[in-house]
């Protein structure tokens, strides 16, 4: 019987499930597009992972992170629910113990995490500006008709510089169209876009901060070697892209879950068979006060498992009856 731990990262663009053994070695990883349906994505992810792992495993713990971390925890039963920033920091420290800077660019947000002597020392997170995120690159790749996987390697083929305004997704896009109409090479434009993104990231998040090497680049966008190169040129140092760069959040959550289970002695995970359960969500607008909170009711196998979304706690604080809890 193999003893394993699971880490789950439910993000806006991707849902990642990873498996680790007791010695923090990654055994398997899974990267699925969330496509706006976190529940389905997670169910599918866990189901696939279950069949890949086979029968002979015992799950000792599970941790969740990402913007859908609370949802995932309600679905699966989690030992720890951790914000993305801490989870990414923990994962990076596990791979490069003396890391000083983490650049993380995901689908919907980007972060910078500064570490000193093995602890997080400062961080910044951007969710307002689309120009610094993976979704923007996705969209541009689609517009140019290039698979996103080839985007980075095309940028490396560029021979001359085309400067693209990276401050804002709208400006960047119109600037790019303009450069296309002038007849510039596609490679050069793609390279310009990568540079613009790196520049925007450093201006936006790195402002006033000291970015010391070793620098780790992680998140979905780290797979793009064009952006990696742009960062290396701007920062003048080597950028480390870890092997599991796109699932680092899940790795962090997994490590933290392991520590938590060690402290508490047992796991809250509901078991791999939970992938076969049905999950249902209903929402309604509470009309008790003018806040009109949108309350979400979450059902696991037809049983009410949790409620959230209210400001006052009228719905979320009420204990769901014991009977329901047992059935669930």
């Amino acid at each position: 019987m193999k003893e394993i731990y699971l880490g789950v990262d439910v993000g806006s663009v991707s849902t990642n499930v990873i498996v680790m053994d007791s010695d923090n070695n990654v055994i398997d990883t899974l990267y699925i597009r969330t496509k706006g349906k976190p529940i389905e994505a997670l169910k599918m992810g866990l189901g696939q992972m279950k069949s890949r792992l086979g029968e002979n495993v015992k799950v000792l713990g599970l941790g969740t992170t990402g913007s859908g971390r609370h949802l995932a925890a309600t679905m699966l039963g989690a030992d720890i629910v951790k914000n993305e920033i801490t989870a990414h920091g923990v994962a990076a420290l596990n791979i490069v113990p003396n890391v000083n800077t983490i650049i993380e660019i995901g689908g919907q947000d980007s972060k910078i995490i500064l570490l000193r002597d093995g602890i997080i020392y400062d961080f910044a997170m951007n969710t307002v500006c689309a120009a610094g995120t993976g979704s923007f690159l996705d969209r541009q790749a689609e517009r140019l008709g290039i698979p996103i996987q080839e985007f980075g390697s095309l940028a490396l083929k560029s021979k001359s510089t085309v400067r693209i305004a990276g401050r804002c997704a709208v400006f960047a896009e119109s600037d790019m169209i303009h450069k296309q109409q002038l007849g510039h090479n596609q490679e050069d434009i793609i390279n310009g876009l990568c540079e613009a993104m790196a520049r925007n990231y450093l201006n936006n998040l790195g402002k006033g901060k000291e970015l010391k090497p070793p620098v780790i680049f992680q998140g979905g966008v780290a797979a793009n070697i064009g952006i990696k190169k742009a960062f290396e040129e701007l920062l003048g140092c080597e950028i480390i892209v870890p092997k599991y760069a796109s699932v680092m959040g899940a790795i962090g959550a997994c490590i933290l879950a392991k520590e938590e289970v060690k402290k508490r002695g047992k796991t809250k995970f509901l078991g791999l068979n939970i992938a076969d359960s049905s999950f249902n969500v209903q929402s309604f607008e509470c009309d008790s006060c003018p806040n009109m909170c949108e309350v979400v009711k979450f059902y696991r196998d037809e049983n009410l498992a949790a409620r959230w979304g209210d400001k006052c706690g009228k719905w979320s604080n009420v204990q769901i009856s014991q009977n329901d809890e047992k059935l669930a």
Partner: protein
Amino acid sequence: MKITFPHIGNSYIPIKALFEDLGVETVIPPKSSKKTLELGTKNAPELICLPLKINLGNYIESIAKGADTIIITGGCGPCRFGYYCEVQKEILKDMGYDVDIIVLEAPEGNKKEFIRRVSKIANTKNIVKISKSLKNAITVLKKLNALEEMVLKARPYEVHENEVDKLYNNFIDKLEKSRGSREMINHLNNAVEMMKEIKLDKNREVLRVGIVGEIYAVIDDYCNFDIGKKLNKMGVEVHKSLSTGEWITEMLLFRSMGMSKEMKIWEAANPYIKTCIGGHARETVGNTVLYSKEEYDGVIQLMPFTCMPEIVAMSMMPSIQEEKNIPILTLIIDEMTGEAGYLTRLEAFIDLLRNRKDKRISQTVDS
């Protein structure tokens, strides 16, 4: 004449006391809610700061409840707040509301006009009655501030969950139902005594965080998505650097008189900001430095989107963080109703503070 006013935190309670003592009818605006914000956003200029939008929503909701006179405080501090009354006047006029708007601001020079406005609102020319009522209302305000401060300090230590909240909400309820300052002062005295009785577990490892920033965002718990309570629930003791009580005394007695506490804040800010640049930028910087001296674990700066003085203060935060060795998190608040993004940042910040503290403790044990 039915008077109304904008919300900021719990200030409606002392205001209610004041007008009840004076015998003037008031309409308390419904508690700020999503609807308030929607009404305000719809009718305010898009890029104006958030407090104006909430204020405007408060007025509209109050007018619907029968208010015909609005009292606004003015401010001479060079930030947009100084223009709030004029802009709000014009907007309400454009919307077709026929309401009287009276601006109260520190009487710089023209004392006669100030007295005329005050006696109009107070419905009396009896200066003794006005000043007595005002004095009592300020007592209510100060005691209420003290209670709020106690709540933010005690919550993370409470042995029985929600005990502090139950007591606090119960007293707010009582205050809303009582009439006049005398009854309120009694209630508040009781509340403070009962707060002291609540069982606290002082052995818990609790972090201490100071809140600085733009005054409305710091004080108003609707605007700041009740950040104090959220932090308390994460095991953090909270202190807010600004309160309505202090602001009122400051406004009435002039900033320039320079009370001892202010001088201390300005002195602390001096290496970074030497003069008032509007709003509370100087206080934000000064208080951050003071929190670091008092060995707080971290500081959170709050500001509405596009708040100019706070943006200037924010630009100084990295150097303060470095030189004073205190982590600082800046949160910019706008009309988003989703709290997830703020929660992620808060949780990560608290993790950061906790790890730092653990490390500091283990180092002192080692040496």
